[in-house]
Protein backbone atom coordinates (compact mmCIF):
# COMPACT_ATOMS: atom_id res chain seq x y z
CA UNK A 1 0.00 0.00 0.00
CA UNK A 2 2.62 2.45 1.06
CA UNK A 3 4.51 2.12 -2.24
CA UNK A 4 1.49 3.25 -4.29
CA UNK A 5 1.09 6.27 -2.05
CA UNK A 6 4.66 7.38 -2.58
CA UNK A 7 4.50 6.85 -6.33
CA UNK A 8 1.54 9.28 -6.57
CA UNK A 9 3.43 12.04 -4.84
CA UNK A 10 4.64 14.80 -7.18
CA UNK A 11 8.36 14.39 -7.54
CA UNK A 12 10.59 17.34 -6.74
CA UNK A 13 12.74 18.43 -9.69
CA UNK A 14 15.95 16.46 -9.94
CA UNK A 15 18.70 18.06 -7.92
CA UNK A 16 21.94 18.59 -9.84
CA UNK A 17 24.82 16.41 -8.68
CA UNK A 18 27.23 19.28 -8.75
CA UNK A 19 26.74 23.05 -8.85
CA UNK A 20 29.36 23.31 -11.56
CA UNK A 21 28.53 22.74 -15.21
CA UNK A 22 30.58 22.34 -18.34
CA UNK A 23 31.21 25.68 -20.01
CA UNK A 24 32.30 26.64 -23.49
CA UNK A 25 35.82 28.08 -23.34
CA UNK A 26 36.11 31.86 -23.62
CA UNK A 27 37.58 31.67 -27.11
CA UNK A 28 34.65 29.65 -28.45
CA UNK A 29 32.41 32.60 -29.35
CA UNK A 30 35.03 34.56 -31.35
CA UNK A 31 36.19 31.36 -33.07
CA UNK A 32 32.62 30.54 -34.09
CA UNK A 33 32.16 34.12 -35.30
CA UNK A 34 35.29 34.00 -37.49
CA UNK A 35 34.37 30.56 -38.82
CA UNK A 36 30.82 31.73 -39.59
CA UNK A 37 32.11 34.78 -41.46
CA UNK A 38 34.62 32.68 -43.40
CA UNK A 39 31.94 30.17 -44.32
CA UNK A 40 29.58 32.95 -45.36
CA UNK A 41 32.30 34.58 -47.49
CA UNK A 42 33.06 31.24 -49.13
CA UNK A 43 29.39 30.66 -49.95
CA UNK A 44 28.67 34.21 -51.15
CA UNK A 45 31.79 34.72 -53.25
CA UNK A 46 31.98 31.06 -54.34
CA UNK A 47 28.49 31.26 -55.81
CA UNK A 48 29.01 34.99 -56.61
CA UNK A 49 25.60 35.93 -55.32
CA UNK A 50 26.38 39.13 -53.45
CA UNK A 51 28.82 41.43 -51.70
CA UNK A 52 30.12 42.19 -48.22
CA UNK A 53 26.68 43.08 -46.84
CA UNK A 54 25.32 39.64 -47.61
CA UNK A 55 28.48 38.11 -46.10
CA UNK A 56 27.81 39.91 -42.84
CA UNK A 57 24.11 39.04 -42.76
CA UNK A 58 24.71 35.41 -43.63
CA UNK A 59 27.66 35.31 -41.23
CA UNK A 60 25.48 36.59 -38.40
CA UNK A 61 22.85 33.92 -39.06
CA UNK A 62 25.51 31.19 -39.26
CA UNK A 63 27.07 32.52 -36.06
CA UNK A 64 23.76 32.25 -34.21
CA UNK A 65 23.17 28.73 -35.48
CA UNK A 66 26.75 27.67 -34.73
CA UNK A 67 26.70 29.21 -31.27
CA UNK A 68 23.44 27.50 -30.42
CA UNK A 69 24.69 24.14 -31.68
CA UNK A 70 28.03 24.37 -29.87
CA UNK A 71 26.52 25.57 -26.64
CA UNK A 72 23.74 22.99 -26.82
CA UNK A 73 26.26 20.22 -27.26
CA UNK A 74 28.58 21.30 -24.45
CA UNK A 75 26.56 23.33 -21.96
CA UNK A 76 23.00 22.13 -22.44
CA UNK A 77 19.78 23.61 -23.69
CA UNK A 78 19.24 26.40 -21.16
CA UNK A 79 22.68 27.86 -21.72
CA UNK A 80 22.32 27.55 -25.47
CA UNK A 81 19.09 29.51 -25.39
CA UNK A 82 20.61 32.12 -23.12
CA UNK A 83 23.58 32.61 -25.44
CA UNK A 84 21.43 32.79 -28.55
CA UNK A 85 19.10 35.38 -27.06
CA UNK A 86 22.01 37.46 -25.76
CA UNK A 87 23.53 37.41 -29.22
CA UNK A 88 20.17 38.37 -30.78
CA UNK A 89 19.73 41.29 -28.38
CA UNK A 90 23.23 42.55 -29.10
CA UNK A 91 22.60 42.30 -32.85
CA UNK A 92 19.38 44.26 -32.43
CA UNK A 93 21.37 47.00 -30.73
CA UNK A 94 23.92 47.03 -33.54
CA UNK A 95 21.12 47.12 -36.12
CA UNK A 96 19.61 50.12 -34.35
CA UNK A 97 22.91 51.98 -34.19
CA UNK A 98 23.94 51.35 -37.81
CA UNK A 99 21.48 53.81 -39.40
CA UNK A 100 22.27 56.44 -36.77
CA UNK A 101 26.02 56.14 -37.28
CA UNK A 102 25.48 56.14 -41.04
CA UNK A 103 23.46 59.37 -40.87
CA UNK A 104 26.05 61.08 -38.72
CA UNK A 105 28.86 59.92 -40.97
CA UNK A 106 27.11 61.05 -44.15
CA UNK A 107 26.30 64.43 -42.62
CA UNK A 108 29.83 65.03 -41.42
CA UNK A 109 31.57 63.81 -44.56
CA UNK A 110 29.36 65.74 -46.95
CA UNK A 111 28.58 68.68 -44.73
CA UNK A 112 32.12 69.81 -44.12
CA UNK A 113 32.68 70.88 -47.74
CA UNK A 114 30.97 74.26 -47.26
CA UNK A 115 31.62 74.49 -43.53
CA UNK A 116 33.32 77.88 -43.77
CA UNK A 117 32.93 81.39 -42.44
CA UNK A 118 31.19 82.50 -45.60
CA UNK A 119 28.42 79.98 -45.04
CA UNK A 120 27.61 81.39 -41.62
CA UNK A 121 28.08 85.04 -42.61
CA UNK A 122 26.02 85.38 -45.77
CA UNK A 123 22.53 84.72 -46.94
CA UNK A 124 21.32 83.55 -50.36
CA UNK A 125 20.44 87.08 -51.40
CA UNK A 126 21.65 87.77 -54.98
CA UNK A 127 23.34 84.39 -55.23
CA UNK A 128 22.96 83.08 -58.75
CA UNK A 129 23.16 79.51 -59.93
CA UNK A 130 26.81 79.95 -60.94
CA UNK A 131 27.89 81.55 -57.68
CA UNK A 132 29.82 79.16 -55.39
CA UNK A 133 29.28 81.42 -52.38
CA UNK A 134 26.08 81.89 -50.46
CA UNK A 135 25.20 80.82 -46.96
CA UNK A 136 22.54 80.01 -44.42
CA UNK A 137 22.80 83.00 -42.08
CA UNK A 138 19.19 83.98 -42.81
CA UNK A 139 18.03 80.41 -42.29
CA UNK A 140 19.84 80.06 -38.95
CA UNK A 141 18.30 83.33 -37.79
CA UNK A 142 14.90 82.10 -38.96
CA UNK A 143 15.17 78.72 -37.21
CA UNK A 144 16.34 80.26 -33.95
CA UNK A 145 13.61 82.89 -33.92
CA UNK A 146 10.78 80.62 -35.00
CA UNK A 147 11.67 77.78 -32.66
CA UNK A 148 12.42 80.26 -29.88
CA UNK A 149 9.03 81.94 -30.17
CA UNK A 150 7.31 78.58 -30.48
CA UNK A 151 9.09 77.41 -27.32
CA UNK A 152 8.14 80.61 -25.48
CA UNK A 153 4.52 79.93 -26.34
CA UNK A 154 4.37 76.18 -25.77
CA UNK A 155 6.67 75.47 -22.83
CA UNK A 156 4.68 77.45 -20.22
CA UNK A 157 1.37 76.49 -21.80
CA UNK A 158 2.29 72.83 -22.12
CA UNK A 159 3.67 72.49 -18.60
CA UNK A 160 0.70 74.30 -17.06
CA UNK A 161 -1.66 72.12 -19.06
CA UNK A 162 0.10 68.97 -17.83
CA UNK A 163 -0.02 70.26 -14.24
CA UNK A 164 -3.73 70.84 -14.63
CA UNK A 165 -4.31 67.35 -15.98
CA UNK A 166 -2.24 65.61 -13.30
CA UNK A 167 -2.84 67.70 -10.20
CA UNK A 168 -6.20 69.39 -10.62
CA UNK A 169 -8.12 67.81 -13.49
CA UNK A 170 -11.10 65.77 -12.42
CA UNK A 171 -13.93 64.41 -14.44
CA UNK A 172 -15.02 65.14 -17.95
CA UNK A 173 -13.18 68.35 -18.66
CA UNK A 174 -9.75 66.90 -17.86
CA UNK A 175 -10.62 63.79 -19.83
CA UNK A 176 -11.60 65.92 -22.82
CA UNK A 177 -8.33 67.86 -22.63
CA UNK A 178 -6.30 64.66 -22.50
CA UNK A 179 -8.26 63.28 -25.42
CA UNK A 180 -7.71 66.34 -27.59
CA UNK A 181 -4.02 66.48 -26.71
CA UNK A 182 -3.79 62.89 -27.91
CA UNK A 183 -5.59 63.80 -31.11
CA UNK A 184 -3.26 66.76 -31.61
CA UNK A 185 -0.25 64.44 -31.39
CA UNK A 186 -1.40 62.80 -34.59
CA UNK A 187 -1.89 65.96 -36.66
CA UNK A 188 0.48 65.94 -39.66
CA UNK A 189 2.73 68.98 -39.77
CA UNK A 190 1.46 70.04 -43.19
CA UNK A 191 -2.04 70.31 -41.72
CA UNK A 192 -0.87 72.63 -38.96
CA UNK A 193 0.81 74.68 -41.68
CA UNK A 194 -2.43 74.85 -43.65
CA UNK A 195 -4.36 75.75 -40.51
CA UNK A 196 -2.07 78.67 -39.73
CA UNK A 197 -2.06 79.69 -43.38
CA UNK A 198 -5.84 79.79 -43.48
CA UNK A 199 -6.29 81.32 -40.04
CA UNK A 200 -3.34 83.58 -39.35
CA UNK A 201 -1.81 84.47 -42.70
CA UNK A 202 -5.00 84.89 -44.70
CA UNK A 203 -7.43 86.17 -42.05
CA UNK A 204 -5.54 87.80 -39.20
CA UNK A 205 -2.37 89.17 -40.78
CA UNK A 206 -4.24 91.50 -43.24
CA UNK A 207 -5.67 93.40 -40.22
CA UNK A 208 -2.32 94.95 -39.44
CA UNK A 209 -0.73 94.82 -42.87
CA UNK A 210 -2.80 97.31 -44.92
CA UNK A 211 -5.28 94.64 -45.86
CA UNK A 212 -2.78 92.37 -47.57
CA UNK A 213 -1.95 88.91 -46.21
CA UNK A 214 1.67 88.54 -45.16
CA UNK A 215 4.00 85.63 -44.55
CA UNK A 216 6.04 85.88 -41.39
CA UNK A 217 8.33 83.94 -39.10
CA UNK A 218 5.74 84.37 -36.36
CA UNK A 219 3.20 82.45 -38.42
CA UNK A 220 5.73 79.64 -38.70
CA UNK A 221 6.25 79.79 -34.94
CA UNK A 222 2.48 79.42 -34.47
CA UNK A 223 2.40 76.37 -36.71
CA UNK A 224 5.36 74.85 -34.84
CA UNK A 225 3.58 75.58 -31.54
CA UNK A 226 0.64 73.46 -32.60
CA UNK A 227 3.11 70.65 -33.27
CA UNK A 228 5.10 71.07 -30.05
CA UNK A 229 2.27 71.50 -27.59
CA UNK A 230 0.97 67.91 -27.45
CA UNK A 231 4.48 66.46 -27.14
CA UNK A 232 5.29 68.74 -24.21
CA UNK A 233 1.96 68.13 -22.50
CA UNK A 234 2.17 64.36 -22.78
CA UNK A 235 5.81 64.02 -21.74
CA UNK A 236 5.41 66.44 -18.83
CA UNK A 237 2.26 64.63 -17.77
CA UNK A 238 4.09 61.31 -17.67
CA UNK A 239 6.94 62.82 -15.68
CA UNK A 240 4.60 64.44 -13.14
CA UNK A 241 2.77 61.16 -12.66
CA UNK A 242 6.10 59.52 -11.81
CA UNK A 243 6.61 61.82 -8.81
CA UNK A 244 5.74 59.63 -5.81
CA UNK A 245 2.51 60.70 -4.02
CA UNK A 246 4.25 60.51 -0.59
CA UNK A 247 6.36 63.52 -1.60
CA UNK A 248 3.23 65.57 -2.19
CA UNK A 249 1.74 64.33 1.08
CA UNK A 250 4.97 65.16 2.89
CA UNK A 251 4.68 68.75 1.72
CA UNK A 252 0.94 68.97 2.45
CA UNK A 253 1.59 67.66 5.95
CA UNK A 254 3.94 70.59 6.55
CA UNK A 255 1.10 72.98 5.81
CA UNK A 256 2.42 73.87 2.38
CA UNK A 257 -0.36 74.96 0.02
CA UNK A 258 -1.01 72.81 -3.00
CA UNK A 259 0.22 75.28 -5.62
CA UNK A 260 3.47 75.75 -3.74
CA UNK A 261 3.90 72.01 -3.34
CA UNK A 262 3.57 71.64 -7.08
CA UNK A 263 5.93 74.51 -7.80
CA UNK A 264 8.63 73.74 -5.26
CA UNK A 265 8.47 69.97 -4.77
CA UNK A 266 6.69 68.21 -7.62
CA UNK A 267 8.03 70.12 -10.64
CA UNK A 268 11.68 70.23 -9.41
CA UNK A 269 11.56 66.48 -8.83
CA UNK A 270 10.28 65.88 -12.34
CA UNK A 271 12.42 68.59 -13.95
CA UNK A 272 15.07 66.46 -15.72
CA UNK A 273 12.33 64.44 -17.43
CA UNK A 274 10.35 67.55 -18.32
CA UNK A 275 13.45 69.11 -19.90
CA UNK A 276 14.01 65.98 -21.97
CA UNK A 277 10.44 66.14 -23.26
CA UNK A 278 10.74 69.83 -24.09
CA UNK A 279 14.01 69.27 -25.95
CA UNK A 280 12.49 66.42 -27.95
CA UNK A 281 9.67 68.65 -29.06
CA UNK A 282 12.07 71.49 -29.90
CA UNK A 283 14.21 69.11 -31.95
CA UNK A 284 11.12 67.95 -33.79
CA UNK A 285 9.98 71.51 -34.46
CA UNK A 286 13.41 72.63 -35.64
CA UNK A 287 13.39 69.90 -38.25
CA UNK A 288 9.95 70.72 -39.68
CA UNK A 289 9.86 71.98 -43.27
CA UNK A 290 6.25 71.96 -44.38
CA UNK A 291 4.71 74.53 -42.02
CA UNK A 292 7.58 76.96 -42.57
CA UNK A 293 7.30 76.56 -46.33
CA UNK A 294 3.58 77.30 -46.22
CA UNK A 295 3.45 80.24 -43.84
CA UNK A 296 6.92 81.84 -43.59
CA UNK A 297 7.49 82.11 -47.29
CA UNK A 298 11.17 81.27 -47.12
CA UNK A 299 13.02 84.33 -48.38
CA UNK A 300 16.64 84.43 -49.50
CA UNK A 301 17.53 87.59 -47.59
CA UNK A 302 18.35 88.09 -43.93
CA UNK A 303 15.26 89.12 -41.99
CA UNK A 304 15.58 89.57 -38.25
CA UNK A 305 11.97 90.63 -37.75
CA UNK A 306 9.79 87.57 -37.24
CA UNK A 307 6.60 89.60 -37.49
CA UNK A 308 7.08 91.00 -40.97
CA UNK A 309 8.00 89.59 -44.36
CA UNK A 310 9.37 86.28 -45.40
CA UNK A 311 11.72 84.23 -43.29
CA UNK A 312 13.52 81.00 -44.02
CA UNK A 313 14.60 78.21 -41.71
CA UNK A 314 17.35 75.62 -41.84
CA UNK A 315 15.03 72.74 -42.70
CA UNK A 316 13.37 74.78 -45.43
CA UNK A 317 16.80 75.89 -46.67
CA UNK A 318 17.91 72.26 -46.97
CA UNK A 319 14.76 71.50 -48.92
CA UNK A 320 15.24 74.45 -51.26
CA UNK A 321 18.95 73.90 -51.84
CA UNK A 322 18.47 70.20 -52.47
CA UNK A 323 16.08 71.03 -55.31
CA UNK A 324 18.05 73.93 -56.78
CA UNK A 325 19.50 73.62 -60.28
CA UNK A 326 23.02 74.59 -59.35
CA UNK A 327 26.08 72.45 -58.88
CA UNK A 328 26.92 74.37 -55.70
CA UNK A 329 23.62 73.93 -53.92
CA UNK A 330 23.90 70.27 -52.76
CA UNK A 331 26.97 71.13 -50.69
CA UNK A 332 25.08 74.03 -49.13
CA UNK A 333 22.17 71.71 -48.33
CA UNK A 334 24.44 69.19 -46.60
CA UNK A 335 26.18 71.85 -44.55
CA UNK A 336 22.82 73.31 -43.52
CA UNK A 337 21.64 69.85 -42.45
CA UNK A 338 24.80 69.39 -40.41
CA UNK A 339 24.29 72.82 -38.86
CA UNK A 340 20.72 71.94 -37.93
CA UNK A 341 21.74 68.70 -36.24
CA UNK A 342 24.60 70.43 -34.42
CA UNK A 343 22.27 73.22 -33.29
CA UNK A 344 19.73 70.81 -31.84
CA UNK A 345 22.51 68.80 -30.20
CA UNK A 346 24.01 71.88 -28.58
CA UNK A 347 20.60 73.03 -27.35
CA UNK A 348 19.88 69.60 -25.91
CA UNK A 349 23.21 69.36 -24.10
CA UNK A 350 22.84 72.90 -22.75
CA UNK A 351 19.34 72.16 -21.49
CA UNK A 352 20.46 68.94 -19.82
CA UNK A 353 23.29 70.75 -18.07
CA UNK A 354 20.94 73.50 -16.93
CA UNK A 355 18.45 70.99 -15.56
CA UNK A 356 21.30 69.33 -13.68
CA UNK A 357 22.73 72.56 -12.27
CA UNK A 358 21.02 71.50 -9.06
CA UNK A 359 24.07 69.99 -7.36
CA UNK A 360 21.90 67.39 -5.67
CA UNK A 361 20.62 65.54 -8.68
CA UNK A 362 22.98 62.66 -9.25
Amino acid sequence: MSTTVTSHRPRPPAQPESLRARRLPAYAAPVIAVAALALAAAIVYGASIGGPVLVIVLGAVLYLVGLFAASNAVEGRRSARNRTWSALIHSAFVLAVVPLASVVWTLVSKGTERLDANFFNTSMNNIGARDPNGGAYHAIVGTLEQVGIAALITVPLGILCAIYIVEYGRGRFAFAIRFFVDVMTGIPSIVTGLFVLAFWVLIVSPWFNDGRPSFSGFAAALALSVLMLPTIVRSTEEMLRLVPPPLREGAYALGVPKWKTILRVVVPTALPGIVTGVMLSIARAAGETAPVLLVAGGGAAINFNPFENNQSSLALYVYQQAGEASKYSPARAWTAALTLVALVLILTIAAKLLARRNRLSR
Partner: protein
Amino acid sequence: MAKRVSASNVTAYYGAFKAIENINLTVEPKTVTALIGPSGCGKSTFLRSINRMHEVLPGARVEGSLTIDDQDIYHRDVDVTAVRRTIGMVFQRPNPFPTMSIFENVVAGLKLNGVRKKSILDEAAEKALRSANLWDEVKDRLGKPGAGLSGGQQQRLCIARTIAVEPQVVLMDEPCSALDPISTLAIEDLMFQLKDKFTIIIVTHNMQQAARVSDRTAFFSIEKTGDPGRLIEYDNTQKIFSNPSVKKTEDYITGRFG
Protein backbone atom coordinates in the same frame (compact mmCIF):
# COMPACT_ATOMS: atom_id res chain seq x y z
CA MET B 1 1.83 74.48 23.13
CA ALA B 2 0.47 70.98 22.98
CA LYS B 3 -3.23 70.70 22.40
CA ARG B 4 -6.10 68.33 23.11
CA VAL B 5 -7.56 66.47 20.15
CA SER B 6 -11.04 65.06 20.38
CA ALA B 7 -13.12 63.12 17.94
CA SER B 8 -16.81 62.52 18.16
CA ASN B 9 -18.76 60.28 15.82
CA VAL B 10 -16.04 60.44 13.17
CA THR B 11 -16.90 58.43 10.10
CA ALA B 12 -14.65 58.38 7.05
CA TYR B 13 -15.29 57.18 3.52
CA TYR B 14 -13.25 56.31 0.46
CA GLY B 15 -15.89 56.96 -2.20
CA ALA B 16 -18.74 54.64 -1.27
CA PHE B 17 -16.61 52.53 1.05
CA LYS B 18 -17.00 53.33 4.73
CA ALA B 19 -13.56 52.88 6.28
CA ILE B 20 -14.25 53.89 9.89
CA GLU B 21 -17.47 54.45 11.75
CA ASN B 22 -18.40 56.50 14.82
CA ILE B 23 -15.00 56.94 16.38
CA ASN B 24 -15.10 58.79 19.70
CA LEU B 25 -11.93 59.50 21.58
CA THR B 26 -10.06 62.30 23.26
CA VAL B 27 -6.30 62.65 23.28
CA GLU B 28 -4.87 64.67 26.15
CA PRO B 29 -2.07 67.19 25.57
CA LYS B 30 1.54 66.08 26.07
CA THR B 31 0.77 62.39 25.94
CA VAL B 32 1.63 59.63 23.54
CA THR B 33 -1.39 57.77 22.29
CA ALA B 34 -0.98 54.57 20.33
CA LEU B 35 -3.53 53.30 17.81
CA ILE B 36 -3.30 49.54 17.38
CA GLY B 37 -5.31 46.95 15.54
CA PRO B 38 -5.24 44.52 12.62
CA SER B 39 -4.48 45.66 9.06
CA GLY B 40 -7.34 47.46 7.34
CA CYS B 41 -9.10 48.42 10.55
CA GLY B 42 -8.91 52.13 9.83
CA LYS B 43 -6.15 53.28 12.20
CA SER B 44 -4.32 55.14 9.46
CA THR B 45 -7.56 56.52 8.02
CA PHE B 46 -8.47 57.93 11.42
CA LEU B 47 -4.97 59.35 11.85
CA ARG B 48 -5.07 60.97 8.43
CA SER B 49 -8.47 62.49 9.08
CA ILE B 50 -7.06 64.30 12.12
CA ASN B 51 -4.92 66.63 9.99
CA ARG B 52 -7.20 66.50 6.97
CA MET B 53 -4.80 64.42 4.90
CA HIS B 54 -7.59 61.92 4.31
CA GLU B 55 -9.34 64.22 1.86
CA VAL B 56 -6.23 64.45 -0.35
CA LEU B 57 -7.32 61.19 -1.99
CA PRO B 58 -10.03 61.58 -4.60
CA GLY B 59 -13.49 60.69 -3.32
CA ALA B 60 -12.43 60.56 0.33
CA ARG B 61 -14.51 62.41 2.92
CA VAL B 62 -15.03 62.64 6.65
CA GLU B 63 -18.19 63.09 8.70
CA GLY B 64 -18.60 63.84 12.38
CA SER B 65 -16.63 66.29 14.43
CA LEU B 66 -12.93 66.60 15.13
CA THR B 67 -11.71 69.41 17.35
CA ILE B 68 -8.37 70.65 18.53
CA ASP B 69 -8.75 72.63 21.76
CA ASP B 70 -12.41 73.22 20.89
CA GLN B 71 -11.68 74.49 17.39
CA ASP B 72 -13.50 72.49 14.74
CA ILE B 73 -10.93 71.13 12.28
CA TYR B 74 -13.57 70.53 9.62
CA HIS B 75 -15.33 73.87 9.89
CA ARG B 76 -16.19 75.47 6.57
CA ASP B 77 -13.95 78.50 7.17
CA VAL B 78 -10.92 76.53 8.34
CA ASP B 79 -7.75 76.91 6.30
CA VAL B 80 -6.48 73.40 5.59
CA THR B 81 -2.85 74.50 5.52
CA ALA B 82 -3.22 76.06 8.98
CA VAL B 83 -4.60 72.77 10.30
CA ARG B 84 -1.67 70.87 8.87
CA ARG B 85 0.82 73.36 10.26
CA THR B 86 -0.73 72.83 13.68
CA ILE B 87 -0.95 69.06 13.31
CA GLY B 88 2.23 67.67 11.73
CA MET B 89 2.61 64.20 10.32
CA VAL B 90 5.37 61.63 9.91
CA PHE B 91 4.77 58.90 7.35
CA GLN B 92 5.42 55.20 7.23
CA ARG B 93 8.21 55.42 4.67
CA PRO B 94 10.72 58.25 5.00
CA ASN B 95 9.93 60.78 2.27
CA PRO B 96 12.63 63.46 2.22
CA PHE B 97 12.34 65.79 -0.78
CA PRO B 98 14.87 64.42 -3.29
CA THR B 99 15.77 67.76 -4.84
CA MET B 100 16.64 69.32 -1.49
CA SER B 101 19.67 69.10 0.79
CA ILE B 102 19.45 68.00 4.40
CA PHE B 103 19.27 71.62 5.51
CA GLU B 104 16.65 72.52 2.92
CA ASN B 105 14.59 69.49 3.89
CA VAL B 106 14.50 70.48 7.54
CA VAL B 107 13.48 74.06 6.84
CA ALA B 108 11.22 73.17 3.90
CA GLY B 109 8.09 73.78 5.94
CA LEU B 110 9.29 77.20 7.05
CA LYS B 111 10.77 78.20 3.73
CA LEU B 112 7.78 77.17 1.66
CA ASN B 113 5.58 79.08 4.07
CA GLY B 114 7.49 82.26 3.48
CA VAL B 115 10.27 82.41 6.08
CA ARG B 116 13.31 83.76 4.24
CA LYS B 117 15.69 85.08 6.87
CA LYS B 118 18.83 82.96 6.91
CA SER B 119 19.47 83.39 10.64
CA ILE B 120 15.99 82.20 11.57
CA LEU B 121 16.25 79.22 9.24
CA ASP B 122 19.70 78.29 10.56
CA GLU B 123 18.51 78.42 14.12
CA ALA B 124 15.33 76.46 13.38
CA ALA B 125 17.25 73.80 11.48
CA GLU B 126 19.73 73.23 14.29
CA LYS B 127 17.00 73.16 16.91
CA ALA B 128 14.87 70.69 14.96
CA LEU B 129 17.80 68.45 14.12
CA ARG B 130 18.94 68.44 17.75
CA SER B 131 15.42 67.54 18.90
CA ALA B 132 15.38 64.73 16.36
CA ASN B 133 18.74 63.42 17.64
CA LEU B 134 20.22 63.86 14.20
CA TRP B 135 22.34 67.00 14.58
CA ASP B 136 25.61 65.28 15.46
CA GLU B 137 25.32 62.89 12.56
CA VAL B 138 24.62 65.46 9.87
CA LYS B 139 26.02 68.78 11.10
CA ASP B 140 29.05 68.50 8.79
CA ARG B 141 27.06 67.66 5.68
CA LEU B 142 23.97 69.81 5.79
CA GLY B 143 24.41 70.65 2.12
CA LYS B 144 24.34 67.01 1.04
CA PRO B 145 21.16 65.43 -0.38
CA GLY B 146 18.64 64.28 2.20
CA ALA B 147 17.98 61.14 0.20
CA GLY B 148 21.59 60.05 0.75
CA LEU B 149 21.05 59.30 4.44
CA SER B 150 20.29 55.84 5.80
CA GLY B 151 16.65 54.84 6.28
CA GLY B 152 16.66 55.57 10.01
CA GLN B 153 18.38 58.90 9.51
CA GLN B 154 15.92 59.80 6.76
CA GLN B 155 13.03 59.08 9.09
CA ARG B 156 14.56 61.26 11.80
CA LEU B 157 15.11 63.91 9.13
CA CYS B 158 11.41 63.73 8.36
CA ILE B 159 10.62 64.05 12.06
CA ALA B 160 12.94 67.06 12.24
CA ARG B 161 11.19 68.52 9.21
CA THR B 162 7.83 68.03 10.93
CA ILE B 163 8.80 69.58 14.27
CA ALA B 164 10.67 72.47 12.62
CA VAL B 165 7.33 74.13 11.86
CA GLU B 166 6.50 73.81 15.59
CA PRO B 167 3.20 71.98 15.39
CA GLN B 168 1.14 71.27 18.48
CA VAL B 169 0.25 67.72 17.62
CA VAL B 170 2.46 65.21 15.81
CA LEU B 171 0.85 62.26 14.03
CA MET B 172 3.03 59.27 13.24
CA ASP B 173 1.85 56.60 10.82
CA GLU B 174 3.90 53.49 11.59
CA PRO B 175 7.09 55.56 11.67
CA CYS B 176 9.34 52.60 12.48
CA SER B 177 7.93 49.88 10.24
CA ALA B 178 10.63 50.39 7.60
CA LEU B 179 13.46 50.69 10.12
CA ASP B 180 15.89 48.38 11.90
CA PRO B 181 15.71 47.90 15.71
CA ILE B 182 18.46 50.43 16.44
CA SER B 183 16.82 53.20 14.43
CA THR B 184 13.50 52.21 15.99
CA LEU B 185 14.99 52.62 19.44
CA ALA B 186 16.34 56.04 18.46
CA ILE B 187 12.89 57.12 17.35
CA GLU B 188 11.18 55.71 20.44
CA ASP B 189 13.63 57.63 22.64
CA LEU B 190 12.81 60.65 20.57
CA MET B 191 9.11 60.23 21.26
CA PHE B 192 9.76 60.33 25.01
CA GLN B 193 11.56 63.63 24.60
CA LEU B 194 9.03 65.11 22.20
CA LYS B 195 6.21 64.31 24.62
CA ASP B 196 7.30 67.29 26.72
CA LYS B 197 6.30 69.65 23.97
CA PHE B 198 3.90 67.89 21.64
CA THR B 199 0.85 65.72 21.70
CA ILE B 200 1.80 62.56 19.85
CA ILE B 201 -0.52 60.07 18.19
CA ILE B 202 1.16 57.02 16.72
CA VAL B 203 -0.17 54.16 14.62
CA THR B 204 1.81 51.00 15.10
CA HIS B 205 1.60 47.31 14.30
CA ASN B 206 4.18 46.58 16.91
CA MET B 207 2.44 45.95 20.22
CA GLN B 208 5.64 46.01 22.22
CA GLN B 209 6.27 49.42 20.78
CA ALA B 210 2.80 50.60 21.74
CA ALA B 211 3.35 49.25 25.26
CA ARG B 212 6.78 50.90 25.51
CA VAL B 213 6.06 54.38 24.21
CA SER B 214 2.43 55.21 24.82
CA ASP B 215 0.44 56.49 27.77
CA ARG B 216 -2.93 55.62 26.30
CA THR B 217 -3.80 52.98 23.73
CA ALA B 218 -6.76 52.77 21.39
CA PHE B 219 -7.65 49.42 19.91
CA PHE B 220 -9.40 49.44 16.52
CA SER B 221 -10.91 46.44 14.82
CA ILE B 222 -13.25 45.27 12.08
CA GLU B 223 -15.83 42.51 12.13
CA LYS B 224 -14.88 41.21 8.71
CA THR B 225 -13.35 42.50 5.49
CA GLY B 226 -15.51 45.24 3.96
CA ASP B 227 -16.94 46.36 7.28
CA PRO B 228 -15.98 49.75 8.66
CA GLY B 229 -13.35 49.89 11.40
CA ARG B 230 -14.54 50.70 14.91
CA LEU B 231 -12.89 51.76 18.13
CA ILE B 232 -13.17 48.75 20.42
CA GLU B 233 -11.40 49.95 23.51
CA TYR B 234 -9.52 53.06 24.59
CA ASP B 235 -7.79 53.17 27.92
CA ASN B 236 -4.48 53.58 29.71
CA THR B 237 -1.80 51.54 28.02
CA GLN B 238 -1.07 49.77 31.28
CA LYS B 239 -4.66 48.61 31.55
CA ILE B 240 -5.05 47.63 27.89
CA PHE B 241 -2.01 45.43 27.99
CA SER B 242 -2.56 43.87 31.42
CA ASN B 243 -6.29 43.78 31.98
CA PRO B 244 -8.35 44.85 28.95
CA SER B 245 -12.06 45.13 29.57
CA VAL B 246 -13.13 43.85 26.16
CA LYS B 247 -12.58 40.24 25.17
CA LYS B 248 -11.63 41.15 21.60
CA THR B 249 -8.82 43.39 22.78
CA GLU B 250 -7.45 40.63 24.93
CA ASP B 251 -7.60 38.18 22.03
CA TYR B 252 -5.71 40.59 19.81
CA ILE B 253 -3.07 41.45 22.38
CA THR B 254 -2.44 37.87 23.32
CA GLY B 255 -2.14 36.96 19.64
CA ARG B 256 -5.26 34.86 19.39
CA PHE B 257 -6.54 36.83 16.41
CA GLY B 258 -5.43 39.46 13.91
